[in-house]
């Protein structure tokens, strides 16, 4: 066996790197066996080294039951979200789930935002990844996720070789507080009296959850709206308690309205009547697509404000 590194071939170096990774596992793999395959791929067939490593890794997983996570883990360094600038990098992150969105593709099991002290980034969990679901507000270690660029923005994708483990620490998010007065000028789809999946809470579309198929579902009240202050637009989500405080319509009342009119859309019409074109003061956190509403209330001007303008003009 060659003891001097300088005399080792690339095939030998790569072989030893793989063996190093599985050293702790109780697997009886012969070095000659791996080296033979590595030489065949790299030296004879001229396969790129990364492909050769991947092929042999898959072989070990298949034939010897080595855990794939074990082999991949050491390849992806722990980084901060603000460090992510290039696509196709394998990284690990310690981050908190800031917000989950409704996924509108059956290929996506979860989509939303995760954040750490340095920033917030979109994350996508592919259905094929077969991951346990994450929850809003909890912090996780995301291992072996891949950076990607979508519509000009960076995101991270969680795939089959990734691993998500809940952690005890409460990851702090960067403060991006917003305090704005604007008018609600539009409602987005899936607003009003909606049904959510009993299993995962996703909004049902025509009684179908895209993860769990046709389910009974439970009723909920929410509005996705566009708030506009003449300079920027903010997408906000109002939950039942926000709506109840602003319009007097809570879930119970909404169900009554639907029953009286024999139409669940009557609730939406009623909410539009009470909210569209009105001014609100919203305090919240801006993270990615939606502004997370912490406080919302009707806004009225005071006579003093008019006085100030008149003085400025005089």
């Amino acid at each position, binding site marked *: 066996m060659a003891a001097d590194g300088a005399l080792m071939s690339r095939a030998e170096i790569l072989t030893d790197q793989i063996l190093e990774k599985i050293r702790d596992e109780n697997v009886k793999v012969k070095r000659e066996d791996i080296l033979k395959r590595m030489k065949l791929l790299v030296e004879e067939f001229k396969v790129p080294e990364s492909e050769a490593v991947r092929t042999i890794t898959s072989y070990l997983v298949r034939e010897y039951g080595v855990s794939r996570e074990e082999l991949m883990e050491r390849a992806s360094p722990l980084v901060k979200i603000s460090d992510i600038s290039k696509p196709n990098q394998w990284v690990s992150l310690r981050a908190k789930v800031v917000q989950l969105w409704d996924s509108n593709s059956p290929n996506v099991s979860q989509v939303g935002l995760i954040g750490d002290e340095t920033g917030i980034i979109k994350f996508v969990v592919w259905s094929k990844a077969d991951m346990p679901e994450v929850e809003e507000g909890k912090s996780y270690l995301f291992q072996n996720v891949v950076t990607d660029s979508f519509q000009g923005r960076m995101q991270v994708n969680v795939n089959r070789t990734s691993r998500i483990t809940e952690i005890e620490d409460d990851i702090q998010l960067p403060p991006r507080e917003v305090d704005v007065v604007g*008018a609600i000028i*539009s409602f987005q789809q899936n607003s009003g009296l909606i049904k959510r999946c009993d299993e995962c809470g996703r909004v049902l579309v025509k009684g179908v959850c895209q993860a769990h198929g046709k389910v009974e579902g439970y009723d909920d009240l929410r509005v996705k709206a566009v708030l*506009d*202050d*003449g300079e920027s637009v903010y997408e906000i989500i109002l939950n039942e308690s926000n709506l109840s405080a602003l319009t007097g319509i809570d879930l119970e009342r909404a169900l009554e309205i639907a029953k009286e009119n024999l139409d669940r859309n009557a609730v939406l019409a009623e909410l539009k009547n009470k909210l569209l074109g009105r*001014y609100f003061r919203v305090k919240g956190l801006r993270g990615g697509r939606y502004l997370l509403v912490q406080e919302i209330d009707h806004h009225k001007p005071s006579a003093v404000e*008019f006085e100030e*303008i008149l003085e400025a*003009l005089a």
Partner: protein
Amino acid sequence: MMRKREVAKRIFAQELVRSTYQIEDQNQIKYVLTPTGERVNRIFSVAVLLDKDEIGADTNFWRLRLADPTGTFFATVGRFQPEALEVIGEINVPELVALVGKTRVFEGTSRKLLSIRPEVISPVDIAVRDYWVLETARRTIERIESMEKREGEDVELAWRIYNPDLDEYREMVRKAVATVKEDVEVMERFEEEEEEIDFTGFEFEEEEIDLTDLLEE
């Protein structure tokens, strides 16, 4: 790149109806340029709906005339604006409404005409109008200031196209704010008094109204 939603600009009617110069950007989005140099694709306004006229019988195509404290402007609603159309069908004029809509310029026989295609029309109360006037006054003053400083391409273009008298726009803002300020003061006094009056103990009697005269007509 996903197309960003256009911000709804706040423009007083007097300035809005004069905004007939059109710009198209590299994404084929159409804007009108206002005399104070604002690029507008969408507006948010709070105005009194004065008239609604159906153009031809049963066409469900309506011409609307609206007014804010500075002047009047027009809007047209048809079947491509289903939400606004539904509201217009039921509304009685005059009524104070909040209006979100896209700007359109039509070539008239003698001059260009600006009109709004409403996306949202919603009856609102006076307090909404009050804040809209305040907000629109602030934005307009900011634009007048940028015009004075000659900041930016659109500002230069506005000078070239319209050569506006900025004092006229300052006066427009002053008048609008002064009119509404009185209302706000009255409302504030009223709210203070309301808190002092104790309504408990009052009994309200429902009056019976004789409708027979009306029915016979």
